[in-house]
């Protein structure tokens, strides 16, 4: 493998994976904050407003980290993937530029009002500010998924004589079926993260016997949102995604399951390690005929194996793709189990006394981050060896004018920078969680800047 190509791939993979730690929480928390504020308006109970303010502070810090790690992503199409940018800019930059024009301006304008304007706007006006920040962050997610969706499943384009692409339909790019399916799957994944984080902080407060009233609100809202989003994640969104992928990226589907040979009544592998030399699965635990059923709705259908595709069209790292997919799907199933148990206890009014369940909720919050990351790895490793599926190979897209050493230098720079950023963010988040949601005892100063630090 060409060193420079590998490093450019690693560079993008590292910076985008790190970046996505933050937006998944902001996009997941935004609707939950709107729900808390709605509950506050409906019931008149000030605890909901305090809870909303607490999560707004967490949101602000996360949002900032998302902004500063997101800016490099927009630049990296050009810096590290110049040939790709040159060829596809006339299509893919439509959603990329629309994100800037339609959602970043919206978010940045209303974020200020959302973070600073509660007194000035009044409860109803402030609800709208929160709602518009939610809309802005979800629009932002949409445009990025639309850009990725086009790379996964190119539509509404025309190729010009020089090989470049131009858009033929404004709505075609935005209403790409792949994009719509991937978007709802991504967004409910973000809500899973938001819900687990909210429930975890609530469980922590209850177990530590602090801020008990807020803790109960966090756990209740987190568990109800969590069960809804975890179920939606599997059905219908994950199911639709799997079927659409099997129809349009059959080689990827085969690699995700490490299905080396076409099989009628194909089994689903629960556990096992793909052996690329012998083209088998080691230590397999399988459910017979389940894969055929999941994709085609019948246990006898034939699923195409990797043997149906020329090896140069196989995803370049089949084991990584296989493991990413299995981690995502396995954790997704586990989330339903955890949240269903918690929801059942909540319904029986036994959750707040069930310390074992609170322990599970408190400790479970890292796993949605892992599942979301694994999901994106599945999508992007699965897209290989293509940048634009079926049309432009990855090795045709990187910046050939940037040497491997320079790429390594900036990759190391980003690693150092992000290590430092992680320390600051974790310190500030831990501090907010320790201070808790009570307004009393907090300095009466208004926040001075967007992440909610006080003047």
């Amino acid at each position, binding site marked *: 493998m060409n060193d420079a190509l590998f490093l450019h791939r690693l560079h993008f993979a590292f910076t985008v994976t790190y970046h996505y730690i933050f937006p998944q929480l902001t996009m997941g928390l935004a609707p939950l904050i709107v729900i808390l504020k709605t509950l506050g308006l409906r019931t008149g109970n000030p605890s909901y407003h305090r809870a909303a303010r607490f999560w707004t502070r967490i949101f602000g810090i996360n949002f900032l980290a998302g902004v500063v790690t997101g800016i490099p992503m927009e630049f990296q199409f050009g810096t590290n993937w110049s040939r790709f940018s040159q*060829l596809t800019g006339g299509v893919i930059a439509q959603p990329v530029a629309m994100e800037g024009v339609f959602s970043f301006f919206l978010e940045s*304008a209303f974020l200020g009002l959302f973070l600073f304007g509660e007194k000035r706007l009044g409860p109803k006006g402030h609800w709208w500010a929160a709602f518009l920040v939610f809309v802005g962050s979800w629009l932002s997610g949409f445009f990025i998924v639309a850009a990725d969706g086009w790379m996964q499943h190119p539509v509404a384009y025309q190729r010009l004589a020089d090989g470049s692409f131009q858009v033929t339909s404004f709505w075609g790019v935005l209403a790409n079926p792949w994009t719509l399916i991937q978007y709802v799957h991504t967004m409910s994944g973000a809500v899973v993260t938001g819900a687990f984080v909210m429930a975890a902080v609530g469980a922590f407060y209850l177990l530590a016997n602090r801020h008990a009233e807020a803790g109960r609100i966090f756990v209740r809202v987190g568990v109800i949102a969590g069960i809804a989003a975890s179920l939606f994640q599997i059905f219908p969104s994950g199911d639709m995604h799997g079927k659409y992928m099997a129809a349009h990226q059959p080689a990827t589907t085969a690699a995700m399951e490490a299905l080396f040979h076409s099989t009628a009544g194909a089994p689903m592998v629960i556990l096992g390690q793909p052996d690329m030399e012998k083209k088998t699965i080691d230590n397999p635990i399988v459910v017979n005929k389940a894969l055929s059923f999941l994709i085609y709705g019948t246990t006898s259908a034939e699923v195409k194996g990797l043997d149906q595709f020329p090896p140069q069209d196989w995803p370049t790292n089949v084991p990584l793709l296989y493991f990413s997919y299995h981690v995502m799907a396995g954790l997704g199933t586990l989330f339903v189990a955890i949240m269903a148990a918690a929801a059942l206890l909540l319904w029986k009014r036994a959750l707040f006394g069930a310390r074992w369940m609170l322990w599970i909720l408190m400790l479970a919050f890292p796993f949605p981050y892992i599942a979301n990351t694994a999901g994106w790895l599945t999508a992007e490793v699965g897209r290989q060896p293509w940048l634009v599926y079926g049309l432009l190979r990855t090795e045709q897209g990187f910046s050939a004018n940037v040497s491997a050493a320079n790429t390594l230098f900036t990759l190391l720079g980003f690693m150092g920078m992000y290590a430092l950023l992680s320390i600051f963010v974790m310190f500030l988040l831990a501090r907010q969680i320790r201070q808790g949601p009570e307004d009393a005892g907090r300095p009466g100063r208004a926040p001075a800047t967007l992440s909610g630090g006080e*003047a």
Partner: protein
Amino acid sequence: MGTIWFSLVALMLVGYVVLDGFDLGAGALHLIAARTDGERRLVLEAIGPVWDGNEVWLLAAGGTLFYAFPLVYASSFSGFYLALNIVLWLMVFRAIGIEFRTHLADPLWCAFFDGAFSLASILLIVFFGAALGNVLRGVALGPDHYFFAALWTDFRPGANPGILDWYTILCAVVALAAVGMHGALYLILKTEGELNARLRTLVKRLWPALVGLSGIALAATVLVRPSLLDNYRSAPVAWAIPALVAAGLAGMAYFTRSGGERNAFLSSCLYIGATLAGAAVALYPALLPSSADPANSITIGKAAAGAASLSIGLLWWGIGMAIAIGYTVVVYSMFKGKVRAGSSYH
């Protein structure tokens, strides 16, 4: 159609420099002009609610460039690889400098983030100034319209120049003076008392330097690339632009003396906007000129995306930017007036 998009991208970049310019300038002056903890908080409060929105102009401009002129986005971003990545790191430092300082009242914590904010602001202005210098001077574009610029070579703007040479360093110094001035005039508009008085003194001292540097930079630009005057020769009406630059400079001095804080700041906006417009007119129809063989220059015709992309884009861009300008107006009108300790957004 290409010319329309050239103007739109130029307009967005002007919007970026005029808006983010004042918070970058405020950052550059942060350690010098604001001495006490209270004053530094005021500086942060004066830009706190708007800096992020200002930075969005750069992102939106970058996205628009990517869409309308994919080749120039691809070539310049990869060619200026090292400088751009340093810019990205500086932007991270600057953002956390602004945002994280205010979370803790500890003096060491605050000092660290004040330093990060100010140093990163200064270096960003230097890099942006040098970037403009690089575009005016041209880069060593190959026949495939790509290049890779070292951070510096022999510091001479010859056929194979680095990102930093004497000319681009001069541009960086001018940018520092111009954007520093812009930041000072903005902070004068937003503050009172001792800080305000100190900034006024600073503006009065900085002004002659800015006038002198602007003149030197203009002469140096013509020396480095005489063909930048071609458009002015063929369309003399374009000389109105340098006249506006001069008017902006005069306005800064006049209104600072007469106490017209808002007009002084607007004069600075005019100065920056007209300087950049002058550069855009001089470059047209090139987007990125070649320092060696003019045949390799990237022009509008070579870089523009397909005709369908350009006409479809006009619709969403127009609607989106109209809404975005609406937000900008609303935010600034809610945030008008002086900032006072702990008073933000009331």
